[in-house]
């Protein structure tokens, strides 16, 4: 019998698997404890966590660079203050919405430690999400000085002057987190199929740095790059919430973009789930 042959599921009544709703309800019930334990883990690893956060310093490097360039005068309409608010916004949003699920998942698939998570009666992705959400309070603590600085620097330019934009901002941050998380799951789940999934992740990071607005504001990029960025999902992971935060989008435009962002969230979720399910079928659980 070849390995591709389908197993005979066998005769006899197999109980119907509980529906997605029941599974979600079970996970929701467990979620507070998972979050609490996750926070305890973050606190236990606090020094490592802090160092890891401090490695996200590229926006500050770019800020210094563009600040010097804009000293002569505005660049494509952006003055020094605009660059400052933009990069502080990038730093805050990036620290709040980024996660390392691709790296974690890839390692767990490769060394087999995923096995223990697959043996639990809640989906491993719920636990993974809880792991990463539980890092947010500590991250929020780290970015609070940046937010204070941003408010001082941005003043009238920030989204705070329009309550509709505040709501869009919150939803866009949630959307950015989910979009990033599902992308990470999709990338991490590639480890079920290829040994170099972390290489793909590195490649993804390079593309992300350009098309998300992480390195350079879209206004300063060549037109074709910013046009492409408008179509790709990367901008919705970072650039879009930053634009809302620093008040570069009006309420109508922001709402339209929010719809596009959430459409990408749904698409990426579906993609991640398809890759995950196909991957778990191939999982060899080596070493685990």
């Amino acid at each position: 019998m070849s390995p591709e042959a389908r197993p005979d599921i066998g005769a006899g009544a197999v109980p119907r698997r509980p529906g997605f709703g029941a599974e979600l309800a079970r996970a929701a019930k467990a979620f507070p404890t998972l979050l609490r334990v996750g926070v305890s883990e973050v606190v236990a690893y606090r020094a490592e966590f802090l160092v890891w956060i401090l490695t996200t310093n590229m926006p500050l490097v770019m800020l210094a660079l563009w600040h010097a360039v804009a000293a002569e005068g505005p660049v494509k309409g952006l003055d020094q203050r605009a660059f400052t608010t933009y990069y502080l916004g990038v730093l805050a949003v990036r620290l709040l919405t980024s996660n390392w699920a691709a790296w974690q998942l890839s390692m767990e698939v490769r060394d087999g430690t995923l096995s223990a998570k697959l043996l639990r009666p809640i989906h491993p992705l719920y636990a993974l999400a809880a792991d990463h959400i539980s890092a947010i309070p500590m991250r929020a603590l780290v970015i609070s000085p940046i937010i204070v600085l941003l408010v001082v620097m941005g003043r009238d330019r920030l989204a705070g002057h329009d309550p509709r934009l505040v709501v869009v901002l919150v939803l866009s941050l949630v959307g950015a987190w989910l979009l990033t998380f599902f992308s990470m799951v999709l990338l991490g789940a590639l480890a079920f199929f290829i040994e170099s999934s972390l290489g793909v992740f590195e490649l993804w990071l390079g593309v992300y740095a350009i098309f998300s607005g992480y390195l350079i504001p879209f206004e300063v990029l060549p037109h074709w790059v910013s046009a492409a960025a408008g179509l790709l999902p990367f901008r919705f992971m970072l650039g879009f919430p930053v634009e809302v935060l620093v008040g570069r989008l009006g309420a109508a435009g922001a709402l339209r973009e929010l719809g596009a962002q959430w459409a990408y969230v749904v698409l990426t979720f579906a993609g991640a789930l398809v890759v995950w399910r196909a991957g778990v079928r191939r999982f060899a659980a080596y070493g685990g």
Partner: protein
Amino acid sequence: MIDVRNLSKSYRVHKRAPGIAAALRSVLRRRYETVKAVEDLSFQIAEGERVGFLGPNGAGKTTTLKVLSGLLHPTSGTVRVGSYVPHMRDPRFLQLITLVMGQKQQLLWDLPPSETYAMNRAIYDIPKAQAEATVRELGDLLEIGDLIGKPTRQLSLGERMKCELVAALLHRPRVLFLDEPTIGLDVSMQAKMRDFIRDYNERFGAAVLLTSHYMDDVVALCPRVVVIDHGRLIYDGDLRALARKVRPDKHVTIRLSKPVDHADLARMGTIVSANGAQAVLSVPSAQASAVVRDALATLPIVDLTIEEAPLEDVMRELFGASGTGKDGREPSPSPKPARAGA
């Protein structure tokens, strides 16, 4: 409780020769080969039964346990645990089982075991009072004491393994898959683990499928063994019957007050070892009592014991003699898949 019929599991593995040239060639053209880890394996285990799952390294034991616990999809065949198909990983199935792997752990490394227990309580949706009672009860049996409050990384291997067992059994599973649960533990800790597993099995009526390279674990816990080699079943039945079948001789150990002639020993049986003070003879089981009578009457005996051949020897002989696998030869000694493939 466990029903395995004609289970086969194959892996497709990348194969390349060592060296830089082979590495470069493999970039352009990858060669794969199919490895049959388990082939046409069938057995059943009833509720409350304790079964040893034996075989040499690479025989397919761990692969089978992973299929039974739903981690791996079978290539072909039918597997049921309870009424569930394991690889569908129904949450109710996962609530029913536990898989303990001696070399792997689920305890959170930098947090005390109590945090893992709290997490498992939430994941398995166990009422708080019941979880606390279980931790107390299992903790008492394993003499865990205040270990559950110390960070896992500060615990010794034995302490970690005890805490690991409590985490694995917190939801009171009805089926225990134990893969080398005593590996690396000292003799007294191994004995404690064995007592604990037997106690849990008797108390909760749980089915136990155990793999271990420590034959003492198997002898102490498992009246029945399933033996596989090269992924194929070569024996399923009573452990003692297997020992008698493979090594029908008994070992008679004689301690002597003074040296005796070699010839006096040789006429009683095959000499396994002999020095001035002690001799070990291998004699057919049927003649053991006659040999003992003869020895007591004719030799200056201080002490005498009769033992069956150690299980390690039985296994060594079984796997040395079994010709199962790629050449398709029938194994010897006469395989007896007593309960398999109904």
